[in-house]
């Protein structure tokens, strides 16, 4: 009788080759893990005004998305920005957010977004969200998906008003408004 699984050894052999024949990073990821990696990169390519109180850590705040908060915590282990270790803090909608360097928010209604963003107007906090219409509500960085890949828009004017400088390396990757 024909051996039905004759193809399996071949597949395994080629798999082994692939595993040890190339540098191993992977590309199939969950949405929170991917967003966390983007958020980290946004922070890397942003410069905060010199007069922002330094504090003990570089704080990334997350509002209403515990999955992204968890993914961020994992992602930034052992990493630092502005020569300070990165801390990930979950914040409530009503809590003050002016100590955050970065604020990511999700799952809010348009009116809630407007309130949070209005409170941070001209405050050097990099705001990020995938909520529809985030930029028009006064947010800085808008995530969206296209063909399964994550894309983003940056409202440069809003960022400038807040005193944030965004690197051209980030801007060329951003989708035009």
């Amino acid at each position: 009788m024909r051996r039905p699984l004759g193809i399996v050894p071949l597949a395994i052999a080629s798999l082994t080759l692939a595993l040890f024949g190339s540098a191993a990073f992977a590309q199939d990821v969950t949405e929170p893990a991917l967003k966390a990696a983007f958020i980290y990169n946004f922070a890397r390519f942003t410069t905060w005004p010199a007069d922002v109180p330094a504090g003990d850590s570089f704080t990334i705040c997350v509002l209403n998305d515990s999955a992204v908060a968890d993914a961020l915590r994992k992602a930034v282990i052992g990493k630092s920005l502005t020569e300070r270790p990165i801390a990930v803090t979950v914040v409530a909608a009503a809590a003050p957010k002016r100590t955050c360097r970065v604020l990511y928010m999700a799952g809010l209604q348009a009116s809630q977004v407007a309130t949070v963003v209005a409170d941070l107007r001209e405050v050097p906090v990099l705001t990020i969200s995938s909520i529809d219409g985030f930029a028009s509500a006064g947010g800085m960085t808008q995530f969206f998906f296209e063909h399964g890949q994550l894309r983003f828009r940056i409202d440069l004017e809003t960022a400038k008003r807040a005193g944030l400088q965004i690197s051209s390396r980030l801007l060329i990757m951003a989708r035009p408004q």
Partner: protein
Amino acid sequence: MNRKLVLVLVCAVMLPRAAAAQSLTDLSLEDLMQIDAGQVFGASERLQPSIEAPASVSFITAQEIQRYGYRTLADILRSVRGMYVTNDRNFSYIGARGFGKPGDYNSRILLLINGHRVNDNLFGQAEIGAEFGLDPATFERVEVIRGPASSLYGDSAFFAVVNVITRSGESLNGTAATVEAGTLGTGLFRASTGRRLSNGADYMFSTTFEHSDGVKKLYFPAFDSPETNHGIAERLDGEGVKQFYGRATFKGLAVTTMYGTRERDIPTASLQTMFNEQVWHEQATDRHGLVDALYTRSFRDTRLTLRGSYDRFTFSGTYPMAVEPDGTPTLVGDATGTGARWSASSGVTQPLPGRQTLRAGVEFIDNLAQNQRGGFIGNPIPPLFDIKTSSTQQALYLQDEMKVTRWLILNGGLRFDRYEQFDRVTPRAAFIVMPSSAQSFKYLFGNAFRAPNGWELNDFYFGDRVHQLRPESIDTHEVVWERYFNDRLRTATSAYWYRADRLITPTLDDSTFLGATFVNQGEVRAKGFETEAQLRLGGESRALVSYAIQSAVDQQTGEELPNSPRHVVKGRISVPGPTARSFVSFEAQYLSARGTVPRFDADGNFAAGRVKGAAIANVTVVQPLGHTWELTGTVRNLFGTIYADPVSDQHVQESVEQNGRTARIGVTWKFSQAE
């Protein structure tokens, strides 16, 4: 058996180890933007992570289509866990979850282009070979959503939904031309252009011409006698394809157009036609046209969609039954079908308090024409039949997802369909537990229906009884476990129980023209288990292995369904080649033995045969030459496996042998637009 066990163990030990290296944060933004985060649209008519979707979903991306040299939607579906495709040298048929009845025209799979139904309104057919009408080079992504989805889409969403998302100009960003040549007298030419303009408008156009002579001499043992050329059909396997695709988007409006034709000679002498007839070939032509306009607009939290579409499908076939030696057609059948429909739909997606997302929609379909005509060429008598019908359908649906807690998602859907002959209500429910964002356990309950199609309702062929036909239905239970390990390895495992009732089944009836009719009486129970592991490795290497075991039993006979392999095993891997942007991709697929459709043998016994199990391997190489040129080469059925697919009882042969080793090479010139 030991060998298998060892392999499984090696796999189990190796995969997590491979996944223990670099983290996502070490990747550049450029690399991050290439990553696929598994977002599915077609499971809920809105974008959501597939791990949260109320279905088990697979994707095939444009990159994979190119790297594996997929030339048809059939090639793409063959690569997906648990699915299999059979071919009778006319159409390709999808097998899913153990159901793969030869000759059922894929009317139990819903095929969408950018979310719009393209099963025709005559046979309900999802055409997946070259007859689909769109070149896979114009696909951005294909979503395969397993399980019934009639609660969202109505008719045909019985075993699975296949959503083809087409390419945008931004994705092509330039102008490209491709020429390919291959064995079996194959030639292809494709020209495409597209870009995104600075004002946000985006356009893409593409056209493809393809021709294949096919196998010059095909041997069919069932016809091996001196009167029928010793079973050899000569030069009767050719196929010609013309395809056009256009898409333009601006602000919230997206317009997709397509037109595709396929002409094919049919070498099998199906439908009791003459074998190896050289003047009047048995021949079929399928044409698909589509204009689809979708407008999307957000008002604060609410997203509104409006859609209007026009679909046209025509079919014509020639069937030689008696031809004089000088070529005069004594009895050459001539059949045509025309299906045309307008459809309009509107939907709204609305977040509600309590972390709910509501999707509601309405749909109107005006089937302008569902016409079938049959007669004989060169014969002055009126056609045998000339059925002209039209009909309308309306539907309403509602779907709600509730994120009850951080780890629990409830999902429910209900759709009401109104046809002229009947109404249907279809529910769906999902209970999804997510211990973390990287793992989910799903329990899915589904229900679906398939309305009788125009072929089954042809009262000239099958008598007036067919007007009593009602939709067939299916109830399904499925449990799914999906898990991401360290963002590098994804596994998905699923077990399911399907019960299909009132299946529209042919039965003998002497009072009808064809001596048969259709009744709602088939009942099938199926169960199965599927598992897959997907690895995305460094240097853009990717690998996927999958296994499915399944059993589908006809409750009347107690027999396994025909064309239902017990085991389906697949593996594929794509690794970088010697230079930048070059890739070598290898895939292998195994189907275990399958039963054929039972028929009367020479001794008058009604019995089914079997085709043996077979493993097929394909390899594709993509090699760029500088920045503007690219070479591709594909060898299909690399080891020249000899195997056959079971075919419908409209054939004398119980199975039809498939192609041996074939190869094609191509060269693409691409000019990219400057930013």
